[in-house]
């Protein structure tokens, strides 16, 4: 029964979702939305599981003085300080997003700059990955290098200055061969998703049940 009941629930839910896609009439019409609301409620509760996991694993590292326990201490302190300031801001101003509240201070001056820094690092990583990918050691890599050069130059004003046909060639590369490959992958993913969904609904794919 440990497997049969979840399989039955999966089958019923899957069939309902498929059927409601074609039937707009109530009560089936809004069933999908309702199931998504249930999912959000479950997700809300599992956030507590996540917090428990995060705090538990980091507390254990600090208590055992595991290698890198200092980072865990930063995580714990960061979590507690953010939570306390969040609660404080909410009690004091009835809102977390009141300008000038301690929580907004943390958000504006710590979280936003840290996020922006991580995102900005992407530029350097793109450069290093592109350097490796574009090294013209094979025919494929050479083709990639030439195509990338055309596309990059064709998309900036200096490209048109170098050769007036570059933007048009760039457009052709993006709209014909690039789009064809992209759509091929899209169709494959769509077919794979349908087949995988069918396997899950029919109970052939049970890995998610462990």
């Amino acid at each position, binding site marked *: 029964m440990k497997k049969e009941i979840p399989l039955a629930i999966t089958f019923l839910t899957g069939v309902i979702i*498929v059927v409601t*896609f*074609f*039937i*707009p*009439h*109530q009560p089936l*019409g*809004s069933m999908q939305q309702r199931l998504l609301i249930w*999912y959000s409620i*479950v*997700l809300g509760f*599992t*956030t507590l*599981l*996540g*917090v428990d*996991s*995060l705090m*538990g*694993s980091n507390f254990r590292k600090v208590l055992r003085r595991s*290698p*890198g326990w200092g*980072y865990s201490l930063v995580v714990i302190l960061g979590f507690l300080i953010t939570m306390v300031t969040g609660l404080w801001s909410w009690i004091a101003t009835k809102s977390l997003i009141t300008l000038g509240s301690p929580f907004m201070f943390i958000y504006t001056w710590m*979280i936003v700059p*840290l*996020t922006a820094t*991580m*995102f900005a*690092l*992407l530029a350097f*990583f*793109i450069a*290093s*990955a*592109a350097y*490796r*990918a574009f090294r013209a050691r094979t025919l494929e890599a050479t083709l990639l290098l030439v195509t990338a050069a055309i596309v990059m130059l064709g998309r900036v004003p200096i490209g048109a200055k170098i050769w007036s046909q570059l933007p048009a060639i760039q457009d052709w590369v993006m709209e014909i061969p690039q789009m064809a490959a*992209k759509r091929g*992958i*899209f*169709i*494959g*993913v769509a*077919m*794979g*998703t*349908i*087949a*995988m*969904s*069918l*396997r*899950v609904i*029919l109970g*052939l*794919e049970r*890995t*998610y049940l*462990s």
Partner: protein
Amino acid sequence: MNRASMVLAALLLAAAPLLAAKAAPAAAARPAPVFSAGLQGEDTPNDEGRSITITWTKSPLDGGDATTFKGYQVLRAEQPAGQFTEAGFVIGGKTQYQDNVDEGKPYYYRLRQLAATDSSESEVIGPVRATAQWFDRSRVNVLVLTVILSFLLIWYIERAKKGEELFIRKIQGLDAIDEAVGRSTELGKPILYSFGLGEIRDIVTVASLAILRQVAVKCAQHGTELLVPNWDPLVMAAAQETVQQAYSEPGRPDLYKEGNVSFLTSDQFGYAAGVDGMMLRQKPGAVFFLGYFYAEALLMSETGHSVGAIQIAGTTAITQLPFFIASCDYTLIGEEMLAASCYLKRDPQLLGSLKGEDFVKAVLIWGFAAMAVLGTVGMLMARGGHAWLGGVFQAIQNWFVTA
């Protein structure tokens, strides 16, 4: 003129200012001049009965200049002579509005144009009622294709059940799992597995759980540490269960550490920073990026590359695939990721569904080729005055378009 008439005339003259004062507000309340809007209202088709579609023809004053013509006010009432209130506002240039209403109730509509010089209203239309439909006719094409696809998949599964030999091409990324785990074991380093930012409802995350199971079984067999940092707590719960079960399979449940399959954060770049930190501190021998990824994909895979880990990635996120291909040793492209559980398990029924999928793809490829030829020939024939083939092409194309 008799005396009575003269008295009446005198009374009327005396009362004239009073009558004029009474008549003035009445004139002000009189509806503005009617403009011909060709207003029409009908139940919105293929919906749950909560919407009425109002259409009209463009006003002559609607010339595309927002300073002289603001737009149209859709007014609604429940009685033809009742109080009309604003149901919605549509900017100039638009000629349609979908009004959210209660099912079955009669509604009356009129349209007011909001021009700088004129705010006249249209004639009243109604009653219009919203009704629910039992079948969405705009999705017939999806239904037909779903039934055909499901039939083919089930047919191939049944064929596989009968023991028919099915050929599946090699997927290098999946074959490399053994190599990756083996190398980590030899180096005495842990293995890191990331689902990216996928949720448990994403089919690619479900597919990734199947791969995680295989990786975890091999880790348990070799006694290699497996780290699974998570972005979504629900995925974390599923991953914990999967890894725990997988460690029991070769009889090594003692090796399972719950803290190794943990929640990190639900912030995109916070998660990337956390995973990068883990990689830089623990120097994993192998890294698996299998799931749904966004901009954090390259941040993590380049860090993995910098610590010298063998990297296997796979995603259905097309925009991130080039980054993985550039920075990882093996990449599962799109559908390969979804085929992983069938490929790894080698279960005949699962392999059968893969063959069915391949058959449908072959049909689609031939279909696209046939449509390309049909479209080209149709256009050439239309130039010669024979438009019927072009019409056939257009009809087929229209059938495939979903609302």
